[in-house]
């Protein structure tokens, strides 16, 4: 069929040029030193120098904290919104802030957290005195969590929305307490939503370099910050690509761990 190929030509061209080629090039580039010679040196340096490994562990740890915090805030929020009357409208209000440019939201926190900003005003007002908030690890974690929360709420809400309420009723009728119902029925059944949320939050959290720059004040270095640094500041593309390959590997691990195991549902334990 001629038309089949005609339809797909631009699309396949796109896949070849913008999906396969860039990914291949980043792998290729990771084997070149800053002077343009083929080498395994970047990987050796990455694995042997403690700096890179420590940075990677730190980055994963921060992403983990951000994901856990986002989950702790989002699950109850999604659950409660699902019980509201105009739930679609409330959900829209949750999604609306994601439409505001990420840089602007980050910028707002520079004002809120600054030495004379509103948060410090409030702390002084309640008698706690002012503190250095901006350029700390905690401020980075707070802002990153803030940014990611809607992306966690959305999939969890969808999972809760699809949950058949008669299953919950059945559990309660059979004598389970509210907590037991939640732990044994609601939470396991909404696990796909939680996994999708973790995926949507954890991977970006490894690479949010603009927030580490603007809020973390270069104290927090994530994998993303390191890549940006190597590509745009020190111009060491080889090392930057090596860290990029590590980030891609981390992404595959996260996706593998949070994958949907479809035929698990029917099993009897």
């Amino acid at each position: 069929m001629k038309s089949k190929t005609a339809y797909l030509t631009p699309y396949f061209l796109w896949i070849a040029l913008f999906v396969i080629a860039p990914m291949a090039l980043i792998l290729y580039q990771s084997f070149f030193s800053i002077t343009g010679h083929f080498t395994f040196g970047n990987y050796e340096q990455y694995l042997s120098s403690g700096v890179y490994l420590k940075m990677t562990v730190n980055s994963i740890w921060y992403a983990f904290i951000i994901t856990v915090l986002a989950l702790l805030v989002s699950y109850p929020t999604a659950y409660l919104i699902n019980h509201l009357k105009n739930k679609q409208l409330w959900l829209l209000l949750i999604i609306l802030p994601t439409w505001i440019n990420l840089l602007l939201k980050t910028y707002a926190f520079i004002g809120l957290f600054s030495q004379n900003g509103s948060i410090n005003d409030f702390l002084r007002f309640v008698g706690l005195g002012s503190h250095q908030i901006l350029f700390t690890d905690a401020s980075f974690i707070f802002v990153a969590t803030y940014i990611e929360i809607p992306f966690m709420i959305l999939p969890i809400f969808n999972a809760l929305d699809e949950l058949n309420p008669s299953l919950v009723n059945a559990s309660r009728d059979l004598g389970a307490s509210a907590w037991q119902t939640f732990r044994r029925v609601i939470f396991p059944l909404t696990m796909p939503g939680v996994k999708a949320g973790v995926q949507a939050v954890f991977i970006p959290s490894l690479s949010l370099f603009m927030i580490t720059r603007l809020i973390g004040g270069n104290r927090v270095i994530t994998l993303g910050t390191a890549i940006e640094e190597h590509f745009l500041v020190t111009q060491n593309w080889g090392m930057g690509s090596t860290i990029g390959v590590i980030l891609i590997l981390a992404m595959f691990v996260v996706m593998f761990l949070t994958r949907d195991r479809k035929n698990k549902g029917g099993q009897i334990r």
Partner: protein
Amino acid sequence: MKRDHPIRWSNLYLLLVFIVLYLPIIYLIIYSFNAGDTMDRITGFSWRHYLTLFADTRMISIVLNTVIIAVLSALLATIIGTFGALGIDQLKKRSLQNGILSLNNVLMVSPDVIIGASFLIFFTFLGVKLGFGSVLLSHIAFSVPIVVLMVLPKIKDMSQTMIDAAYDLGATKWQTLTRVILPAITPGIFAGYFMAFTYSLDDFAVTFFVTGNGFSTLSVEIYSRARQGIDLEVNALSTLMFLVSLLLVGGYYLLNRYNEKKKIHRAKASQEVDDA
């Protein structure tokens, strides 16, 4: 009666979440009307920062750049993505379809820095000059997969009998495409365009990598200004951008509602035909 209490606590919790979600945005908007120059203290009401913004020709040209990139990249991504989705649907082998869809989703799940860095290597490798062209190409590239994901379900929903009927009645391939298939999947195409448009407007990281020197978009400009500290012109800009986002969301919501209604209307009409 027993449930009265927890509900009130839960409302308080939701209220708190919404306050935290909206506080930074409202804070930005309030200070855009500040007569002073800081985000510390309001010294009075003024339109001063808006006047500065409207007189800032550099900022206005950047806004125009951003909008042009968004409109163009979304348009081209929608065309490539729609035909891609039509092509994928025609493929016979299920495994092949799934394979292509996995490739399609690579850019959806990849972190922005990876997309940005790999595109930068790609453009340098090909010798493409960094600037408008590279930014446009990148925005098209990362918008194509979302268009495919929006359009493909609509194609799958469409019944094959309609297409067969068109052919049986003597329509050419082109006529079938433009008169039957495209009208049926229009809501998906619009949704795809809309998502591509917002992806482009929102993007910072990819643009930051491939923009080079002379060319800038809003996100990149806000980043470089924010690194220099507080500038209430940015607040004025963010207020205007918030209003635009509200209009876009409202428009999208209404479009969806309209499509739903049309669907219900059609379903009713066909029901009546069946009844008669």
